[in-house]
C-alpha cells in the first residue's frame, strides 16, 4: 500500500497504514541492563572491536546499546530504567532520503531500513540525520589491524576471524553500518519455511539480542499479525515509541511503568 507521507496532518492515517512487518518490543521494567544483548549482537553481526583509542574518539561500534539517564538535581538523583537503544527501523526514516548514493534504501519486501555496504561511500550524512544516534561508521579496517594478528610462519593470522558469522558481511573501512533486525535470520527462517511449504511461524526464530536476553525483555516478531506475541505486547497500554513526534514511525515499542 502506498501512502503519501508528506500529507500534513495525516499522521494517524499513516501510522495505521504503515504498521510495518517486523517489530520489536522491549520491556524496560524487566531489563536489568546486563548488556547480554550488546555482546550477542556483536558476535552475531561481526561488529568490530574498535579499541581503546578510537573509543575515546567516540567511534565505538554497537548496533544496540544500553542507555541510562538521571532525573532530578543532585543529591536527589534518580536513575531512569535501562533503555536498550537500537535502530528503530523507521517506516518514515530520516536517514533514508539524505543518502546521496541510495545506499540506505527502504526494503519494500521486509519493511526494514537497509544498509547496502557495497554502495555506501561514507558521507556519514545518514548518521547525522538519525534522531536515535544508532548508526556507526567504520573509521578503519578494524578486523585487519596488524597488531591484532599473530605472525605464524611469516604470515599474519587473525584468530578472531574464526568467529565471524559467514551470513553477515564484514564491513570494510569507510562504510556506515547499523542494526538490521538480524535480516540474515529472517532470510534463513523464510527460506526454511518456504522449503517446507509453510509460512514463518511466530517465535520460530528471533534476533540475537532477543535470544540472549536472560530476562526475556526483548520480543521480536511480526507486528502486522495481531495474534503474534510481539503484536500483543506492542498494543499494551504501557507501550510507547521513542521520538514519535518526529513522525518516524518506529518499529520498536518500549514498555514501561506498568
Amino acid at each position, binding site marked *: 500500500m502506498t501512502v503519501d507521507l508528506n500529507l500534513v496532518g495525516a499522521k494517524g492515517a499513516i501510522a495505521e497504514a504503515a504498521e510495518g512487518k517486523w517489530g520489536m518490543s522491549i520491556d524496560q521494567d524487566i531489563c536489568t541492563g546486563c548488556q547480554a544483548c550488546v555482546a550477542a549482537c556483536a558476535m552475531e553481526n561481526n561488529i568490530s572491536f574498535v579499541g581503546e583509542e578510537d573509543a575515546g574518539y567516540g567511534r565505538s561500534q554497537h548496533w544496540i546499546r544500553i542507555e541510562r539517564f538521571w532525573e532530578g538535581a543532585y543529591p536527589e538523583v534518580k536513575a531512569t530504567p535501562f533503555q536498550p537503544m537500537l535502530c528503530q527501523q523507521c517506516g518514515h526514516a530520516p536517514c533514508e532520503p539524505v543518502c546521496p548514493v541510495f545506499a540506505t534504501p527502504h*526494503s519494500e519486501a521486509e519493511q526494514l531500513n*537497509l544498509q547496502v555496504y557495497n554502495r555506501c561511500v561514507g558521507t556519514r550524512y545518514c548518521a547525522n540525520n538519525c534522531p536515535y544516534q544508532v548508526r556507526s561508521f567504520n573509521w578503519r579496517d578494524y578486523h585487519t589491524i596488524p597488531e591484532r594478528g599473530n605472525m605464524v610462519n611469516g604470515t599474519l593470522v587473525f584468530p578472531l576471524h574464526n568467529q565471524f558469522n559467514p551470513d553477515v*558481511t564484514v564491513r570494510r573501512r569507510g562504510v556506515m553500518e547499523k542494526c538490521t533486525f538480524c535480516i540474515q535470520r529472517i532470510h534463513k527462517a523464510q527460506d526454511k519455511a518456504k522449503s517446507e511449504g509453510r509460512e514463518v511461524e511466530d517465535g520460530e526464530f528471533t534476533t540475537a539480542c532477543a535470544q540472549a536476553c536472560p530476562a526475556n525483555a526483548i520480543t521480536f516478531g511480526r507486528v502486522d499479525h495481531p495474534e503474534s506475541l510481539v503484536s500483543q505486547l506492542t498494543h499494551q497500554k504501557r507501550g510507547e515509541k521513542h521520538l514519535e513526534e518526529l513522525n518516524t514511525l518506529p518499529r520498536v515499542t518500549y514498555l514501561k511503568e506498568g
Partner: protein
Amino acid sequence: MIRKTFEWALSPMGRIAVLIAALSLFSLAAFGVYQSQQPPEQPIQFTHKLHVGLGVQCLYCHPGALRGPSPGLPTISKCWGCHQQIGKTQTSPLLKPMVDAMAKGEGFTWVPVAQVPDFVHFTHRPHVAAGLNCENCHGDMTQVTIAVNPQVMNMGWCLNCHKQKAAGDEEKLTKLTDCGTCHY
C-alpha cells in the same frame, strides 16, 4: 615548464618516447585483464567433461546446492570412494597428486571458481527449487575440464534473470529486486 614538456613531446624523440610509454601501459593493462580471466590453478586437473560424460550427477559431488547456501566442493574421500575401485588411478600421472595425498592422509584445497563477493549472500537452495538447472548459470560442464564461468557473475546479470522470472507478479518482483534480499 609545461610548455617545454609539450614541445619536447612533439619532437621526433619525444614522440617515440610517448609511444613507448603508451604501448607499455597498454600491454600491462592487457596482461592484467588476461591474468584475471585465467582459470585458477587447481590441485588436480579435474576433468568435468569426463566425469559428467560418465554420468556422474552434479549433486553427487556438490550436494549442498539442493539444501543450503553453498554447494560445497568434494573432499578427497569422496573422490577416493570411486577411484579406489578404478585400476587406472594408481598408474595415471594426472591422478598422482590424489594418490600421494591419500597415502599421506592429507586433503586438497580446491580453488572455487564461481564466487560472489563477501557482501553478496547467495543461496543455492531457492534457485534450484525454482527449477533452475546447474548449467543455466555454470555453463555446460560436458565441454570444460576445469570449471570456468560462462559469464561475469555481476548484479546486472542476477537482476536480469530475477526480473524475467518475476514478470507480472508484483509481490515477487518486490522481493526479488529488494536490496536486502542479497546485501546485508
